């Protein structure tokens, strides 16, 4: 049996029937990581010894009750996991060892999952290419000269390259979906509040959501189902009491109506992506799925609104990294004139350029005299956008859009143009601003043999319908990933 070709769902059942063991599985994956990671740079850290020890413990257990018993999972490095280096891709936390585990990772572990390593990411999840990592950029496994997307680039690349059957990412403006799209894998951002944020190092609290990255929709749903839960440690988490997402059926022909917002198919969109989506829609229509054109007129506001809201919250969330209690502190204490000098020295060196840029932007937006014009205004537009989606969902069950304007771009190509970089998120930020569930799944390859993704969005808490539609699309597209 080729373990690397097996889906997570298949591996879980192989583990249950003892066709393989957690130790065998983990050591195979660890070996592959050791071989490929130096070039790919998908992982910031992994501890083979600890992983194998846990695998052995799980193998020794007589009853293998956990839904994920023995399954290796790669975890983005902004999730706290006890005893692991948890860096958030930053020099600021280069040597930070977390004393606790994030609730959603704990839930996976309780079902028998094994955290196989911590994956690379843009610093504090700020970026769309993984080039903002203090630990160097992760590469796109389809072509090492290209970016894997970001900020969960390491997680998407790890799954695409077969270094882990599944991975966990976080998505603040597209950070799961866009790299999933660039790496030819599936990524889900669930409804805001579905998965506890406790233990996820905050970027923008009102937008951040954790989610799975996997090779196919069923694998992603399997992981998502375990992660979703109300957590009393997170006041924004909700009690969904929803039906299980583990037992999904492909949407029956013609059962759902697909909305197509025309603002998402504007001139920004690259030709190949446009054509691929057109092709997909024709096939879906053949299968009896109705489509309806939508107007989401506030779409052009999404990027400015997102960057004000996200940066404002980030500027505040990142204040705790001050060198006082943990993390990086500038050892150069010479010529410290006062307390503010202490902060300046530590934070100027500890944070990278993009993080500093957003802290400045956010600090400005919240400053007295500008607060009403920027933050409050953005919050208002955000509410209107949510209303617009609510109306749109009266006309359709799911909304289909491209995930990004095209496929991955070459490393270094956009690194010096932050505004251009920000437009990578143009189709994904709305789901975060409005709290909606969204998924990206592979649509095909472009002329450079790089993957392109398609995105589905659904009403709040309508993950089930969204995933069933995704299964239908997956079936229609028949995408072949790198591991197949």
């Amino acid at each position, binding site marked *: 049996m080729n373990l690397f070709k097996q889906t997570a769902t298949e591996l879980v059942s192989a583990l249950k029937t003892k066709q393989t063991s957690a130790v065998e599985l983990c050591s195979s994956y660890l070996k592959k990581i050791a071989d490929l990671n130096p070039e790919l740079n998908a992982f910031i850290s992994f501890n083979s010894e600890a992983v194998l020890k846990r695998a052995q413990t799980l193998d020794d257990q007589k009853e293998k009750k956990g839904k994920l018993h023995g399954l290796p999972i790669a975890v983005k490095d902004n999730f706290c996991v006890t005893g692991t280096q948890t860096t*958030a891709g930053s020099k600021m936390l280069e040597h930070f060892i977390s004393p606790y585990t994030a609730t959603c990772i704990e839930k996976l572990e309780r079902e028998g999952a094994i955290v196989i390593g911590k994956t690379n990411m843009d610093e504090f999840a700020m970026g769309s290419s993984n080039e903002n990592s203090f630990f160097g950029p992760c590469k796109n496994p389809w072509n090492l000269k290209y970016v894997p997307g970001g900020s969960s680039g390491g997680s998407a690349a790890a799954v695409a390259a077969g270094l882990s059957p599944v991975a966990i990412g976080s998505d603040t403006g597209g950070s799961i979906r866009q790299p999933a799209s660039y790496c030819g894998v599936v990524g889900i951002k669930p409804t805001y509040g579905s998965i506890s944020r406790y233990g996820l190092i905050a970027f923008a609290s009102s937008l951040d959501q954790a989610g799975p990255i996997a090779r196919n929709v069923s694998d992603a749903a399997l992981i998502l189902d375990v992660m979703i839960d109300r957590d009393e440690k997170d006041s924004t988490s909700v009690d969904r009491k929803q039906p299980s997402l583990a037992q999904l059926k492909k949407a029956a022909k013609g059962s759902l109506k697909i909305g197509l917002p025309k603002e998402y198919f504007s001139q920004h969109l690259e030709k190949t992506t446009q054509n691929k989506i057109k092709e997909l829609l024709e096939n879906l229509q053949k299968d009896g799925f109705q489509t309806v054109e939508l107007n989401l007129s506030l779409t052009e506001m999404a990027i400015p609104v997102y960057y004000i809201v996200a940066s404002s919250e980030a500027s505040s969330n990142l204040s705790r990294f001050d060198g006082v209690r943990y993390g990086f502190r500038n050892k150069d204490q010479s010529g410290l004139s006062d307390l503010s000098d202490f902060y300046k020295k530590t934070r100027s060196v500890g944070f990278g350029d993009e993080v500093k840029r957003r802290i400045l932007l956010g600090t400005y937006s919240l400053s007295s005299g500008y607060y009403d014009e920027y933050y409050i205004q953005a919050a208002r537009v955000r509410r209107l956008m949510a209303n617009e989606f609510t109306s749109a969902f009266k006309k359709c069950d799911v909304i289909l859009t491209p995930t990004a304007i095209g496929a991955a771009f070459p490393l270094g190509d956009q690194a010096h143009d932050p505004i251009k970089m920000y437009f990578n998120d143009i189709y994904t930020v709305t789901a975060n601003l409005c709290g909606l569930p969204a998924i990206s799944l592979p649509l095909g390859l472009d002329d450079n043999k790089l993957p392109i993704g398609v995105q589905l969005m659904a009403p709040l808490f309508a993950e089930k319908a969204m995933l069933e539609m995704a299964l239908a699309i997956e079936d229609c597209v028949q995408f072949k990933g790198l591991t197949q």
Partner: protein
Amino acid sequence: MSKEYDVVIGLEIHAQLSTQSKCFSSASTDFNSGHNENVSLVCAGFPGTLPVLNQQAVDLAIKAALALNCEIQTVSVFARKQYFYPDMPKGYQLTQYEFPIARNGFVEFFLNGEPHRVPLERAHMEEDAGKSTHHGEYTLINLNRAGVPLLEIVSQPALTSAVEAAAYARAVRQALRYAEVCDGNLEEGSLRCDCNVSIKPKGQQELGTKVELKNINSFRFIEKAIDYEIQRQVQCLKSGEEIIQETRLYDSVKNKTFSMRKKEEANDYRYFPDPDLMPLILNNEDILKISRQLPEGPIARRTRFTKHYQLNDQDAELLVSERELADYFENLVNITQDPKLSCSWLTVEFLRLFNESGQKWHELKLTSQNFADLILKIKMGELSGKMAKEVFETMWVTGQTPQAVIQEKGMVQIKDVSQIEAWIDGIIKENPKMVLDYQSGKEKLFGFFVGQVMKLSGGQASPEIVNQTLKKRLKK
């Protein structure tokens, strides 16, 4: 203070809500814990941690606000007040800003017998910061206080003198202690007070520039600091100087205020609603439930004491000044059925020793039952005033019953019937009219005769025998 200037004072009082755990984490609030013992990952602002609002803190805040006659807001919002300081782990303080939990309200009190009512602007919940101590080359941080729940009570700028401001602060403390929401301990920092002081030429509508006084840790210092500050501002204006909007610290040793920071040096706090917490939504039913649990306040109790127990204003006010004292008084009266005598012993002898010893209420050895028994003995004339005082002082120290003290002290009772008869006969002879009155039905006079016998016996005659013999002898 000054005949040419109006004084305008507003107070911001920070009261620690008496919760078991902190405002947003499960860490303990125990004052007696060692350095940094009460610190959870949330209090220390670890990456990825989130605040969860303590329901007990909310309930106590509501109760406190109701005790201050405030209108409880059904929607309130926690904001982040942002600035860097090493003892503030998150880089921001969680505090209600635009939408406080309570608005309006008022505090009533008596000052020199005159009723005062000070209107409140608002009361809002917030978390405390930690504590930094500076040791020359280095600074130590203790996060035990970080995240402790506070209620900030903001008065309207309606106070007009230092004395009134101090009386108001005392009244707030009293109201909070009555409602059992704050222990009001100034030394431990569970009550802190900032004073905003400004002056303006008499009659002028527009307010003068306000100066904020911080770091005042006693009621006496509130008065002194404000008085100093008014003088300083008057001097400023008289010498043609401008008053600068600033924060000043009070130095109680020098009895002076010092500039801490000017307004332009103040931080831009960049307040915005905390996205980690949902708005706090309260329903009227829950508010009503808490209002039903609210015990009688000091003002209501004062009125009841004057009406029901017929105490005078001064005594009533003194008794209600501390809830424990008022409770103790009522315990005494329940047994002695004599409000006046109980009040007098409590406010004179008891308070003298209480204040001298500096004891706390929970450290008291003298139970109200034993104290009441002593008062009853005094009332029955079983002890002379001098003896009673001696017995009381011993009881204070040992916590014994009056009977035990009397025996121990060898205050032996005289049981010699012929001796007692002799005293009684003498008294009957000297008070023929009293005897007649008694015999014609004025039975209240019996106490008088008992008292007379006790007086002659130096309080040592056995009350039992005195009673029996008197009854016999006074019969026609």
